[in-house]
């Protein structure tokens, strides 16, 4: 069993905008590329060109359909990676201390040299956010690009997670969610950001912004917006008067 810090100095995490995510998987592959070259073992692809390819990904996008009573169905793209929970069950379940939550920023990491590949943490995570690497047999998970966000070899502007840097639609935001004045906290407040599965008691740091109302366009008949409507006086008469005013 591994203990969680009683408190962390900051709560670094992601805010993911479900109103804006087009489901393009840019974040998935950017993450794959960065984390194959960095932090710990590369993310492998088993049977890469075969019948049942199975690779390790730290971030995946799922798509859900929402059918509604009086409106057309919606499709929601839902990117999912480790939520860096304050009350992370994946940490407390770890028999070796390999899984841990950092005190300075709250990032949940796996110390691969201490990981025995038992997989208990993946079972404990209610979000399915951890994946056992098929080649290395160690547990892999989102590091919040801990080797980017403090990386002095990167220009300052690039010190953010790879998924955030690459997101074409700007649907992913990174920051300190313990600071109510941070951009991400402001965004969560303004857009009614929510916790994923709060009933699990995991207290996730990452937040999701809900899709805005869809298919609500309700306009009066166009002609009623016009004064006078050409229909009232005949189109040519209207046209003549309108041209006169030009």
């Amino acid at each position, binding site marked *: 069993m591994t203990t969680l810090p009683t408190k962390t100095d900051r709560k670094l995490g992601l805010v993911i905008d479900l109103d804006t995510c087009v489901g393009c998987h840019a974040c998935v592959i950017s993450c794959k590329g960065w984390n194959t070259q960095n932090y710990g073992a590369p993310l492998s692809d088993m049977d*890469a060109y075969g019948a049942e390819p199975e690779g390790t990904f730290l971030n995946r996008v799922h798509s859900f359909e929402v059918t509604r009573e009086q409106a*057309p169905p919606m499709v929601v793209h839902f990117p999912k990676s480790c939520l860096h929970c304050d009350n992370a069950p994946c940490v407390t379940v770890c028999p070796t201390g390999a899984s841990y939550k950092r005190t300075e920023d709250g990032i949940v990491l796996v110390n691969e040299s201490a990981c025995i590949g038992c997989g208990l943490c993946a079972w404990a995570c209610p979000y399915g956010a951890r994946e056992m690497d098929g080649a290395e047999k160690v547990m892999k998970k989102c590091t919040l690009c801990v080797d980017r966000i403090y990386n002095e070899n990167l220009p300052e502007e690039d010190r953010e997670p790879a998924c955030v840097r690459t997101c*074409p639609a700007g649907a992913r935001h990174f920051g300190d969610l313990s600071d109510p004045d941070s951009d991400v906290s402001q965004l969560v407040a303004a857009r009614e950001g929510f916790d994923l599965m709060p009933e699990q008691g995991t207290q996730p740091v990452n937040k999701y912004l809900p899709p805005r109302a869809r298919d609500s366009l309700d306009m009066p008949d166009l002609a009623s917006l016009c004064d006078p409507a050409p229909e009232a006086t005949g189109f040519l008469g209207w046209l003549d008067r309108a041209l006169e005013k030009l």
Partner: protein
Amino acid sequence: MPSQPTPDLSPQVSDEVRKTTCYMCACRCGINVHMKGGRVAYIEGNRDHPVNRGVLCAKGSAGIMQHNSPARLRAPLKRVGPRGSGKFREITWEEALQTAVDWLKPLRDTAPEKLAFFTGRDQSQSFTGWWAQAFGTPNWAAHGGFCSVNMAAAGIYTMGGAFWEFGQPDWDRTKLFILFGVAEDHDSNPIKMGLGKLKARGARVIGVNPIRSGYNAIADDWVSITPGTDGLFILSLVHELLRAGKIDLGYLVRYTNAPYLVNAADGPEKGLFLRDDAGKPMVRDRATGQAVAWDTPGISPDLGAGVEIGGVSHLPVFRHLADRYLAPEYAPEQVSDRCGVPAVRIRAIAAEIARVAFDEEITIDQPWTDFRGVKHDKMVGRPVTMHAMRGISAHSNGFQTARALHMLQILIGSVETPGGFRFKPPYPKPPEAHPRPHAGHNPGQPLDGPHLGYPLGPEHLLLDDAGQPKRIDKAFSWDAPMSAHGLMHMVISNAHAGDPYPIDTLFLYMANMAWNSSMNTSAVMDMLTDQNEDGSYKIPRIIYSDAYSSEMVAFADLVLPDTTYLERHDCISLLDRPICEADALADSIRWPVVAPDRDVRPFQTTLLELGARLGLPGMVREDGSAAYKDYADYITTHERRPGVGPLAGFRGNGDGKGRGAPNPDQIARYIENGGFWIDHIPAEAQFYKPWNAAYQDWAVERGIYDSPQPYVFNLYSEPMRKFQLAAEGHGDRQPPDHLRARLRETMDPLPIWYPTFTDAATDPDEFPLHALTQRPMAHYHSWGSQNAWLRQIHGHTPLYVSGEIWAKHGFQPGDWAILTSPHGRITLPVLRMDALNGRTVWTWNAVAKRRGAWALDEQAPEATKSQLLNHLIHELLPPKGDGLRWANSDPVTGQAAWYDLRVRIEKAPAGQSLAYPDTGQQDSPVPPAPRNLAHQV
């Protein structure tokens, strides 16, 4: 608490960053390629690049797996087994080049038209076209004919530019964005970035698409339109806007041909513009009631009243337009059923367009002067924008639908105004400023001009004295008069049939024509392998260049292996498909960030070498030696016009913008600058480009035009009317009788809608459904599904059907469906999706693979659980009983009507687990792929 581990928080990311241009799709984003020990380690977006500003899509980030793909060809190949078998032997480049020369030289000397050279999704068309022109064959084009020529041609003929490379919404200012049936791999990062900007400021996005996936999923409002009816929906919006008077009359008077008087006198000029003695179109001046030249200073042109001459009343274009679209047949209630859109939704959208355009007008305090010399103290804009691509254009009514869309944009005065749709240089460029098509060929001589262009009337068709098409694809014939991009999808079937004439060598580049890029794939494979009685092939010789072991490779006699995009030079040129922004001129390069580790060569360099060996003009010096060392040398030193070459930046001594002598350091300067060059348009020239004197002068300075080219938008297309007049019997050049009625109908000079040819000919009880393909955002054509990372996102092709169809046929999870069209039949797994137009089913495009291709396992789901809808689509329509076979294409441009497909669906018998039809297997010319990957450099 025990002390925490201390991971390395500042690892060395790379030894060096090399900045080049992505090629994982046609978007052309800037990329930073991180190198470690001379190898590619990681790819990310270039923050300085105008196209993507640092972001990068899934394809772009997966470029490393494309570069390392096991499907990469390794050496030139000569076929040793039957065509299609994939049996080859590797040969030397000397043998490969000499073989090609031995085949091509006699053709050039005797009958250059017997070479058909067609290129696919390459971005070097101004180069390959130049080569083909020097060779002297009229038979060259790229892939536009089966992609989006309807969009491009309708845009050019209507307003001098279309979407994507031609222009873009004013993303920073627009307040309402309407997206019609887009292909989500086109302009992909810029559209996503634009949508993100709109979302961040709460602007409304409306998606018009039968399928609510991708961009449509985040649309605030979704219009689940029935395929092929977008034009009718658009014309109904026009009806509503006209009915309410919500149109920008000032804009129409100043910047369009709305006031031009249309000749109403019976005879050969009927429907053409009334012109003065100098040939200028005339308008009615409201002050005098007289017809005067359209550009007479100080007049106030009328839009309603006409002039009477000799007892005939000649009315302005706008009057014809209003009369047509105000007719009750375009009322929302009348179109609702056919479009699958409730009338109340059509009215609401029209009202929202009107509200935003006219109540939320944008003003920029920027004085400017128009081409008439009139000074304006501000720039006024209507912040409603639209975008469309193949979804509306890949129909047999696609050209007219795209015209209708542009008409809608123009009527509300939003084109080239702040908040509206903006052209990207070198556009705007009206049809008159483009070349005409050429096909004059003679043995041993170059072609008499550029292959492709914009015909302005029947006199520009490419027909011989007997009225037969001069091109193998029959482009610019009566079958498809305005086929501005050629008809690549017809080349193989025409060559196989020897119609209009036989060819000898089919030379293809980067076009998977034996597979996902052809309609009627199974039959095309048969045509490529069909033999004469003596055992020779009907298409005698096939040369193909590709970087990968694609399906088409197996059907070639000679394969010239290309490099990957990280191993070669390219230029994304202003002469071609540039990367400009609405407020800037820009172009870019690729350069070899790594050297090839195989015996492969960049195709363009190979082509120059062939050109030199063939002695083609421009490719050899006087002493017979090669004029260009390689493609990089061509990029730097070639001049298309004096001082104007493939790259616009750093010309002359390095300061030249657009114009200037060749600069030997030009490529080095591009590399130093991050792989691109950008030059911003002055503030006073940024809007109203077709009419803005400052823009026109700037464009001349930069070499875009050689003289100012102001023009007005063509709401009414006079070139179309000329073709229509011919169909009515006027003029020397007459269409064949069987095409007259169709040309009369479809060459209407004002936008029209008609049911797609397939819809019109299909019994809705027999084939009740529309079937579409979409290309996933994470793939590009057949390249994506061989990529180890991307194929894990989309690895097979389920057929998505609505809940109603699901229930009706009793589908259960794991079931397969049989999809039958009038032409063929396929099976594929089925999945339920409710966010669909109820009359539509769909699947992913180009994921399916032939067994043995692309270095994938024979049991890969791309081969076993995937299918191409292409098998269901014939390049010809079913026989109508008139003894003729009609093309399954747009009648104006010849664009392949992929999305006209109609089908019926049945549940496949239990136990189905393999996709039908089985297209056989090809031997792989490359070694088997590694089983597992853990790629750390």
